[in-house]
């Protein structure tokens, strides 16, 4: 295992110390409760927006705490959902009296732990709304699964609902917006290599030198199919076609196209992928109105990428364009 860390035990805390040292203007880290909180939280009268999940997906979620996005993030151990105590503490810390939105990615662990936290917060008379993100088309949403996983759309939702909350929208509207983003977004990912959970010390799965996994999640879970390595153009099709069919996205639609690196993917490859994505969408008559290219929801040092499409309308576009200033996402501020 080759990582720039001190030890598997300290990696999450070391990272959080680094985050706090680097961005004291934006975030503070509460090490007792193990949460990342916006430096000036709670903002009185504003809906608080929190999210959380296992660590190892940086910059998600801690890197999205700041102005115009999340008010707090709850980092669990690597790839392990945080515990209800963290979400409860975060909910208390960001509650400015207008209630708190929990953005939950659809994994059994995340759902159960957030659920317990919401029960506890409501028992303290804090108004909580929860929205579960499940945009991953690699997983069939059927009786035979725990439902689709929440992946790339989470980043887009956090930006968009963060902007709405900053603009003073009430909890119900913020929650509905989050549902709207989830309803209009679809994602799919692939891996060229496995990642290594620090505490496990060896790669989660083994891939041959000429193989790739299609339909992976963000926890080093194996994908749905293993295939021979293919050119970027073909990989883009393998990811995009299921996405396009699923919503479906149609000719005439305008989308936000998000090409995401899994942690070990250099930017040159992401731009190669973006070029293929934009070519395919052009061919289908789908217009890319906005884009995001970079490693924003990762799986440790995994090499690979995911693609997320979000159908845009004026409301979502305006909120996307609104100022944001967080460690990882920043514009017009």
């Amino acid at each position: 295992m080759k990582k720039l860390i001190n030890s598997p035990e300290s990696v999450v805390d070391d990272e959080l110390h680094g985050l706090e040292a680097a961005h004291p203007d934006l975030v503070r880290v509460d090490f007792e409760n193990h949460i990342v909180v916006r430096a000036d939280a709670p903002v009185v009268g504003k809906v608080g927006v929190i999210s959380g999940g296992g660590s190892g997906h940086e910059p998600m979620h801690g890197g999205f705490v700041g102005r115009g996005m999340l008010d707090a993030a709850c980092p669990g151990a690597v790839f392990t959902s945080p515990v209800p105590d963290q979400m409860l503490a975060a909910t208390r810390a960001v509650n400015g009296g207008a209630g708190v939105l929990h953005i939950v990615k659809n994994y059994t662990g995340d759902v159960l732990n957030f659920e317990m936290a919401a029960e506890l917060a409501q028992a303290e008379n804090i108004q909580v709304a929860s929205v579960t993100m499940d945009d991953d088309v690699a997983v069939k949403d059927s009786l035979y699964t725990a439902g689709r996983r929440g992946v790339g759309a989470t980043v887009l939702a956090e930006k968009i609902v963060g902007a709405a909350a900053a603009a003073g929208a009430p909890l119900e509207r913020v929650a509905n917006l989050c549902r709207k983003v989830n309803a209009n977004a679809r994602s799919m990912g692939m891996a060229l290599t496995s990642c290594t959970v620090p505490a496990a010390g060896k790669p989660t799965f083994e891939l041959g030198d000429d193989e790739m996994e299609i339909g992976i999640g963000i926890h080093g879970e194996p994908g749905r199919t293993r295939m021979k390595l293919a050119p970027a153009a073909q990989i883009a099709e393998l990811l995009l076609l299921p996405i396009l069919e699923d919503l479906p996205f149609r000719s005439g639609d305008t989308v936000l196209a998000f090409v995401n690196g899994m942690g070990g993917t250099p930017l040159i490859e992401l731009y190669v992928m973006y070029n293929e994505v934009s070519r395919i969408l052009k061919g289908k008559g789908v217009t890319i109105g906005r884009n995001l290219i970079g490693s924003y929801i990762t799986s440790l040092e995994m090499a690979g990428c995911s693609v997320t499409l979000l159908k845009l309308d004026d409301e979502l576009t305006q909120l996307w364009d609104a100022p944001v200033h967080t460690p990882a996402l920043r514009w017009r501020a």
Partner: protein
Amino acid sequence: MTPDRTCVLAWLRRSAAALHEQRDYLTSLDAAIGDADHGINMDRGFTAVLDKLPTVAEADVGTILKTVGATLVSTVGGASGPLYGTAFLRAGTALAGRQELRPVDALAGFEAAYEGIVARGKAQRGEKTMLDAFGPALDALRAAIEAKQPFANALRAAADAAQAGALATTPMMATKGRASYLGQRSIGHQDPGATSLALFFQMMTDGK
């Protein structure tokens, strides 16, 4: 001999030691069909439990189990944290105030624990989860106790059934939890949660 609070504490300590020892094995099972953390999660939780046990050294069985449950909820995370946590919390509630456990008490505790997992996780048997070890173990325990077998034998039967149940998850296709994302590819691997669950039953028969 009727087991008492001391037996429960000893069982928890043995379980913690066993989870620590099986940490890499459980994690490798989770690597195949999950996210390679189940052993790490359980070990983290039970390390915290060991730290907490001295605070309940004099308490009743119910309090001990509730403390374990609360500690697991607060330290494990993942799917197994709320599930095992709820199981211990419910068992503790069912056994509030007890200093000793007659076989029917133990059965009631396990039944409450099982129902807690079902209520929290909304799974049924056959979905390739911890319930597939817990269900058969509970059936065996209930049958043995109803047949008035010696408690030690009943526990042995439950442990064997749990173990068989864990092994029987291998050919199953997961339809709950993280392994369900794999669909058909989840077939052929033993469920990590079922495996850790069987271990708790095994620790009731070992070292006595």
